[in-house]
């Protein structure tokens, strides 16, 4: 009886923690619609690595990685190796970075971006579920559905393109280490960039 009570207490305490995205725990499942109107749920990609990239095309830190071609290069490299890459836009209508489906599809073409899909999240539901803070804010989920990295794209928190060359890319490191069966060395870092422009 005492044990059952203790178990129940542990479960109660554990619940609020497991609801949010935490490194080392199961990534929360979601269903979201992409810029072509197709629904995607995390559960359907079990068995694959999944990257979530929070995006705001007008944010200077996002621009750093797109105008340099760095983000597109990463998207091509990793989707080429079977990784599912979702760009997520959580800007609310009227806020910086908000895109209609058509605007986003034009942007992806114009920039030569190559994510698996762009998930439109104007309500901020997906952003709040993962507690995405900045653009970019990066999440890496392993084939077992566990969150293995959360945070900055790299270790140079500036808007200058010249800093990309010497930076350690944490997303690449997490994917490489995990694919090689090694433990991920840096599992979390403070994300840098603009605050996500959620609905007020």
């Amino acid at each position, binding site marked *: 009886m005492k044990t059952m009570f203790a178990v129940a207490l542990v479960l109660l305490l554990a619940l609020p923690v497991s609801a949010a995205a935490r490194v080392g725990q199961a990534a929360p499942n979601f269903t979201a619609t992409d810029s072509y109107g197709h629904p995607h749920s995390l559960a359907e990609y079990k068995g694959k690595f999944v990257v979530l990239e929070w995006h705001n095309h007008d944010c*200077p830190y996002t621009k750093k990685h797109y105008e340099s071609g760095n983000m597109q290069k990463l998207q091509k490299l990793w989707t080429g190796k079977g990784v599912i890459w979702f760009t997520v836009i959580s800007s609310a209508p009227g806020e910086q970075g908000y895109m209609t489906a058509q605007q986003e599809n034009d942007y992806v073409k114009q920039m030569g971006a190559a994510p698996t899909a762009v998930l439109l999240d104007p309500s901020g539901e997906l952003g709040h579920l993962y507690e995405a*803070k900045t653009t970019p804010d990066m999440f890496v989920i392993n084939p077992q559905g566990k969150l293995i990295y959360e945070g900055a794209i790299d270790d140079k928190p500036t*808007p*200058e393109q010249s800093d990309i060359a010497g930076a350690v890319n944490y997303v690449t490191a997490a994917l490489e280490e995990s694919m090689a069966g090694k433990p991920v060395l840096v599992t*979390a870092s403070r994300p*840098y960039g603009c605050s*996500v422009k959620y609905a007020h």
Partner: protein
Amino acid sequence: MVRWLASCVGLLLLASGCVRKAPQQPAHSRASLVVEHTAAAPGSKVNVGIQLVTDSGWHIYWQNPGDSGEPPRMQWQLPEGVTAGELEWPTPTRLTTTAGTDFGYQGTTVLLSTLQIPVAPPSGTIRVGGELRWLVCHDICLPQSAHLEAAIRMASAASVDEPASQLLQSAAQRLPRPLPARCRPEAAESRESFRLTLATGPATSEPIARAEFFPEEEAQIDNGAPQELTNHGGTMSLTLKKSEYLQQDPKHLKGILVLNGSDAYLLDAPVHGPAAQRPATQEGNRQR
């Protein structure tokens, strides 16, 4: 120039974005270099300040920007032999954004430094300054940069620029002071938090009704989490929730401690593991 004009006309037609995008036009904040002396003697020190002024509603960042943002960075360009000391930062304020909790400043901010003039400086007038990069934010953020420069005449005796000197002195008075060593700050580390403990008597004779800690390093504590204050005799404790991004416990917790909303101290507390801090019986009870 012609190309720039052409692109501007194009932009004007498209989005009337020309003025906003024009180069060398700092938006929503202005930076300047304030130098205490118009003339300085060989081997002397010259106090300088980087003054940043934001428009109403806009802010810049402290050395630890918090959950988003970026601190101002100065890349000094100085004549040979002249060196600049580390920047000294005034106490920031907490700014709540959609990203969480940031640390920064609104209005006028002065970051202080000291230039060391060599014993055998170049003769005549030297130019000191550098490239300042900073981020100014409201709902959106704009990266800014400016070249700051000032002239100092080399002379046998110093000559003070009075308004500059007064501005720098009042900025220096607003800097956090070192916490008296007799306060003996310590931080006890546990799974979820750091418990910062210190004797308050050497710092203030007032009872501690409020205390706020600003961590110097990013990703150490949860910036938005409440900091729980307890007083016991002449000792105060502040419980600081660990950051979800903390990868390794620091050996020291450094930052600014503000007592009762006004007394700001620079604090450096060694971090101890929980075993060293808690009585064995209490630890034993916790394990069961």
